[in-house]
């Protein structure tokens, strides 16, 4: 990330920080209308806050946003011995996996899937229909027969999807 990009993001961070105390709370995020109307808005906001905490500082803000850096950026700093960058394909998938897996047991259960589905469809689909959709989705992806989706199964299902493109945000300069 370039210096000017960091400055702009910091500018953005401070403009969202209405309490002017150097951290963002959930309300600060919910004040963004486009985010408030996003069906998965609450889940996305949650991703910024570490376990049990209600405030996120700029470092945490950047860390979460880093998942959305385009993968091309890594070509410049190839470091074979370092830790895997946050925006690798694997970490992007992991991020998405965590949006589903609320209790963090490394499995997406039927209930967890239903919860996410319910958030996305609102009141427009009945419980029975939604249940069928969830069942069929799990059935197709579940390989070890435990009626839940592990991270490996998740990755397998999405192997043909262009994750890099769909989960990236490009800066204009």
């Amino acid at each position, binding site marked *: 990330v370039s210096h000017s990009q960091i400055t702009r993001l910091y500018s953005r961070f401070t403009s969202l920080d209405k309490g002017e105390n150097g951290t963002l709370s959930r309300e600060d995020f919910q004040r963004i*209308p486009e985010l408030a109307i996003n069906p998965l808005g609450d889940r996305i906001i949650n991703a910024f806050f570490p376990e049990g905490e209600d405030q996120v500082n700029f470092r945490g803000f950047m860390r979460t946003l880093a998942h959305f850096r385009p993968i091309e950026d890594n070509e410049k700093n190839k470091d074979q011995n370092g830790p895997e960058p946050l925006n690798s394909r694997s970490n992007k998938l992991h991020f*998405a996996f965590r949006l589903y897996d609320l209790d963090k047991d490394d499995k997406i259960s039927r209930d967890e899937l239903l919860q996410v589905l319910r958030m996305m469809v609102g009141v427009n689909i009945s419980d029975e229909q939604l249940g069928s959709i969830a069942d069929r989705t799990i059935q197709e992806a579940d390989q070890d027969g435990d009626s839940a989706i592990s991270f490996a199964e998740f990755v397998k299902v999405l192997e043909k999807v262009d994750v890099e493109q769909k989960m990236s945000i490009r800066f204009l300069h």
Partner: protein
Amino acid sequence: SQGIIERDETPMEKEIARLHREHFEFSDIFYFCRKGFEAIVEDEVTQRFSSEELVSWNLLTRTNVNFHYISLRLTIVWVIGVIVRYCFLLPLRFTLAAIGITSMIVGTTMVGQLPNSSVKNYLSEVVHLTCSRILVRALSGTIHYHNKENKPQKGGICVANHTSPIDAVILTNDGCYAMVGQVHGGLMGVIQRATVKACPHVWFERSEIKDRHLVTKRLREHVADKSKLPILIFPEGTCINNTSVMMFKKGSFEIGGTIYPVAIKYDPQFGDAFWNSSKYNIVSYLLRIMTSWAIVCNVWYMPPMVRKEGEDAVQFANRVRSAIARQGGLTELPWDGGLKRAKVKDTFKEEQQKNYSKMLVRNGSIG
């Protein structure tokens, strides 16, 4: 203004669409996820409630957001600028403003004593115009009026985009209007009580504002009287930062009569006219205005518009809004200016949920 990120405008339908069966895929959340993050980094709405960023610095500290490197020479120029603005311009402007407001109050009170007649109306116009001009000088305002032939006529309604409380002064500098607004206390209240004696402005008590029918009725009566001055209304309902025009409240467009749209665009290089009411109160705002270089703006009078057959108030409001946005070079946003303070309605989220559901289940059956 420039954006930070490349927004991917692919609609939901295209991105999540599938060729054959309708069903759910784990990757569906990617669309919502990315949209959410894009909104976190940069969104269309909240940026309208803060001042526009400048391309190059204009020597006012307040606009020095992104320009950090300041050489010694520039600093000296800046210091001279500060001295000029605060020690020379400010006292001058303040004096002028005081003269302007005092003359307004005294003048309109005196005119108000006269019995209703054409002489009274003429004198009232003279007083209002003169004081308005003094106040514009007090702000060092340089205003270019375009298309004066379209100036609002009596019995009409003038609508304009709203950036600051001084919008009204900018317009009254060139013509007489019947102001519409809420009764305030303090100095503003004194001005309101004085001016309404000379000229039939429409001031509402706070309790009356809540009653929409009462408001519409009173305005309708005013407009029906063709001898009365045109009403001045700002349908956005709140100050926006002059880069875009937000949703127009339909109330103004239900009154009937002819609408005279006016577009006001300030040049941000000389001074930021936008009033960020959550950040500054009116006194700090006026202080900032009076210590800017100048207020330079363009005012375009546009041809009158009337409601078409079969057009409802909302459509009419949008039509007028588009015209104003186009003329002033502003972008149009479907969002309500009320979002400055209030939460967004759930209906927008429900709409997205409905659209997504259609992709999962078509014709009530699962594919």
